[in-house]
């Protein structure tokens, strides 16, 4: 397929990306400093600078389907050192949010981890580690991952066994729902 056809296909995604991220990717001149300093760089299927290039060329679908955007640890080193002032980390973040909305998440387990986390927040307002570990393992299918830490955690008196239940859980729930509704409404635009 020719480039212009591919770009044509991506037209809607491109404008959605622009609206949601507010980042001017045309500034990027492909120096590679983002990839060079990325702590997850050697695990990414597509290096950060090439993600930027895909976005710059308007090939949002490819960028969105990469596993790289999920491996990004949000450490913001790329943005901090970018000589052109491009918020690279925010580009990655926007792509993650878009991948979720467009149902093309490459790293299902990472996504599920965040889902479990948010579900616990919904219910309790605070984190509850045993719930997180068990919940994550249930959805990812790695039933025994990190369970070996359960006992030592307890031995080191590090896990609270009973979850905290807020007195104002209704307030927190309302707040979360409202915020999520707003995010849906605006498509996460910044």
């Amino acid at each position, binding site marked *: 397929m020719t480039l212009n056809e591919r770009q044509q296909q991506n037209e809607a995604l491109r404008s959605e990306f622009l609206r949601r991220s507010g980042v001017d990717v045309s500034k990027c001149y492909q120096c590679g400093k983002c990839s060079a300093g990325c*702590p*997850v760089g*050697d*695990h990414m299927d597509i290096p950060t600078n090439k993600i930027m290039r895909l976005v710059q060329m308007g090939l949002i679908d490819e960028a969105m389907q990469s596993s790289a955007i999920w*491996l990004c*640890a*949000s*450490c*913001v*080193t790329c*943005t*901090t050192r970018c000589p052109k002032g491009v918020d690279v*980390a925010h580009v990655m*973040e926007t792509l*993650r*949010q878009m991948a*979720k909305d467009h149902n093309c998440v490459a*790293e299902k*387990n*990472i*996504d*599920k*981890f*965040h889902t479990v*986390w*948010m579900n616990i*927040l919904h219910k309790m*307002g*605070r*984190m509850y*580690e045993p719930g997180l570990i068990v919940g*994550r393992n249930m959805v990812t299918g790695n039933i025994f*991952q*990190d369970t070996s830490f359960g006992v*030592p*955690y307890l031995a*080191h*008196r*590090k*896990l*609270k066994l009973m979850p*905290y239940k*807020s*007195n*104002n859980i209704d*307030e*927190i729930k*309302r*707040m*979360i729902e*409202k*915020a*999520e509704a*707003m*995010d*849906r409404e*605006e498509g*996460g*635009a*910044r």
Partner: protein
Amino acid sequence: MDYAYFPGCSLESTGIEFHMSAKAVTKALGINLIEIPDWNCCGASSAHTRGHWISLALPARNMAIAEAAKLDVAIPCAACYARSKQVEVEVSQSAETRAKIEEIIGRPYKGESKARNLTDILYRDLGVDKIAAKVVRPLDGLNVLTYYGCLMTRPPELACDDVEDPVSLDEIMKALGANVLQWGFKTECCGGSLTACRPKVGLDMTQKILDAAIKAGADCIVTACPMCHSNLDMRQAQLAKHDHNYHMPVFFITEMIGLALGMKQKDLGVDRHFIATEEVMCKLEEYEQEQIQKMMNEGGEA
């Protein structure tokens, strides 16, 4: 010195040592921490992957409660700090954002109550001289590496220290008498939540940091982030399964201050680490003995 106190979820569980030591040390140093009643999770590394407003709203509620009490918020956890700082900055810069946030959380928040990193409070508000003055058991002879991770220094507009070469932990450790070594990993990422959901990737990142720490000849690492702490401390056992045997104790800055102020390990939570801290304790004691011996010898000669 009064501050509202936001411990965050980790400090109730995997980072409970930070909680214990922070409370003990601040009390001894005359800093009054008032825990925010019924605080909620800041959203940590998950909320911001879901949406902008949810990532701002969660910390905003805690900040609003503190603002009602006219207090700045002391936050030990680097991640909670970064999330809370983000909403403070965005709300104080844009009336539009403020209106939306207030609508979502149903409370007023003008961004007047500031998110403050606890380490920064100790370093800047209190000052290392005041800490040094209270030291009864100097950490002389201890070779430490300071590790800041991502969230104390990045992004630069939220940072509470220099973005590439932060110094607050270094200066506090020096005030405690420790020998602070230099390395290139002060602000490298430990892997964050990746160790939990993509263990291979996350462990690889943790491993690089531990390798560098061994190479630098450190006795221990000092940090101010519960996520970094649990990755570096707890994951050493997992790395051992892949034939990478480390024994690198990892301390919270407040634990170190507590030890230098003569507090008991148990009261600071030092006994709860995965990697035993005995060697560090022994080294401190040995050094102490040596110094006493030296003094006695010198006295004899004179």
